[in-house]
């Protein structure tokens, strides 16, 4: 057997505890394989627990360990970095906790915060920087302006008050009231200096951020706001939002 085939078989045996061992392996080798199988599962579940600390606390350690093990069977790791082992876990949780929709929402928020933690560094543009960058802008330039948000910025849609849930889970003892919101919302995640942060958005800001995040220019973003909220509100919100994002340290650069 070539080394490649031997390694493929060994990996299959590590990933699947039910997989048959090579013919002729004695009890000693089987016991050794049990160590590798245990190391694999323990290390990966632990890595996921580190990423999804609050989700684990919310569902309980035993339920979390079962869900993480299930996720690892569905999506065995392929990358060299443990950082991505938990990718897609919120989708797994959405199936496993179909009656508890706050669980995948909380996990999606933790994943976004985890990604923002090691996103590329950027120096946010301040008011003076924006003024300098746009000093020579014509009206057409403003319309064509591309707004680059700091790396790691994403929106997390949810139907629950994730801020209240997040805060509660950071305390020694937490209450479990109904965190459901009256209407769905989007939570904005970004990194402020070295710290990932998040806050709630309203419908107009979520619409505008979604446009910018998919690469729409400022003019197209304004057009979407006008189409949804009318000329006066749409135009006013577009300008106000840009100012708010500058104040939040969300804008890495603007360009024509």
């Amino acid at each position, binding site marked *: 057997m070539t*080394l490649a085939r*031997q390694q493929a078989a060994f990996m299959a045996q590590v990933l699947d505890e039910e997989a048959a061992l090579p013919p002729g392996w004695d009890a000693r080798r089987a016991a*050794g394989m049990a160590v590798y199988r245990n190391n694999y599962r323990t290390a990966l579940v632990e890595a996921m627990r580190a990423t999804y600390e609050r989700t684990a606390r919310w569902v309980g350690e035993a339920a979390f360990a079962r869900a993480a093990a299930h996720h690892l069977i569905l999506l065995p790791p392929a990358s060299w*970095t443990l950082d991505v082992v938990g990718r897609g876990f919120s989708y797994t949780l959405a199936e496993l906790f179909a009656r508890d929709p706050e669980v995948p929402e909380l996990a999606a928020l933790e994943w976004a915060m985890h990604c923002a933690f*090691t*996103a590329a560094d950027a120096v946010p543009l301040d008011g003076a920087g924006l003024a300098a960058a746009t000093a020579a802008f014509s009206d057409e330039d403003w319309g064509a302006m591309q707004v680059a948000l700091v790396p790691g910025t994403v929106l997390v849609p949810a139907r629950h008050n994730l801020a209240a849930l997040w805060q509660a889970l950071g305390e020694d003892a937490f209450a479990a009231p109904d965190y459901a919101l009256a209407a769905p919302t989007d939570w904005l995640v970004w990194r402020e200096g*070295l710290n990932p942060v998040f806050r709630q958005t309203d419908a107009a800001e979520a619409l505008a951020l979604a446009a910018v995040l998919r690469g729409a220019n400022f003019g197209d973003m304004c057009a979407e706001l006008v189409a949804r909220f009318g000329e006066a509100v749409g135009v006013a919100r577009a300008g106000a939002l840009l100012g708010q994002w500058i104040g939040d340290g969300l804008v890495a650069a603007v360009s024509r």
Partner: protein
Amino acid sequence: MAHDPMAHDIPPFSGFGLGLRREHYPDFLSGEAAVDFVEVISENFMVDGGRPLAVLEQVRAHYPVILHGVSLSVGSAHGVDTDYLARLRTLADRIEPLWVSDHLCWTRTSAHNSHDLLPLPYTREALDVVCDNIGRAQDALGRTILLENPSSYLTFPEDEMAEWEFIAAMAQRTGCALLLDVNNVHVSSRNHGFDADAYIAALPHDRVRQVHLAGHTPGEIVIDTHDRAVCDDVWALYQRTMRLLGPVATMIERDDAIPPLAELLVELDQARALDEGARVREAA
């Protein structure tokens, strides 16, 4: 141009260090921890940005740093991951470490990554694979690397040579340097029934640049857990080993049940004393 490890040997560095663990960040960030170097897990810092890199750069301002990886996978039949190597090179260029090290093992196939240090059969085919992969890694990194002897929990019926013979041949063919994990030798000697001293005696001592010490969990199969103090048997093996080696960097690994830094510094003092004792006795 291919990296020539013979022409770019790693200068020996003599000292005593610890791994950088989150629990001890304040001591290392202030530069107040009494160590000669700090070792970090490379992959934890092969990120785009954020706090990990900011912390490492600040620590690097106070201490020499060793980049110790767990995902190079020099034993993979499918070769080394070029994207991984490019990221590691970026980190090494940024941090300017004492050296870059990883393990004699494999972690992945073309489809999956175990994130564990899996054992190799010690065959001529595996030796060819390992030597090719080390050569590619050294070329991509532009530097000679250190490879660490693994702890293992099974051996293969296909083995054609002993682990120490495999390592000696690997070092001779690739020019790589060695990271001798004394605890791993002890763990594997218990698991596979070989003589730990004979293993260490058979290595090319002039290639060893670093020594690892750690604790393990005893049992029917001894497990390399890094979650407790170094045991007496490993200390004794360390002292006998230091009589054979030239100047090396000695490091104590603790990855779980991490105690206060002061406790690890006491262990490090014990390593210093044993090393000094070994060298005095050798000189006499």
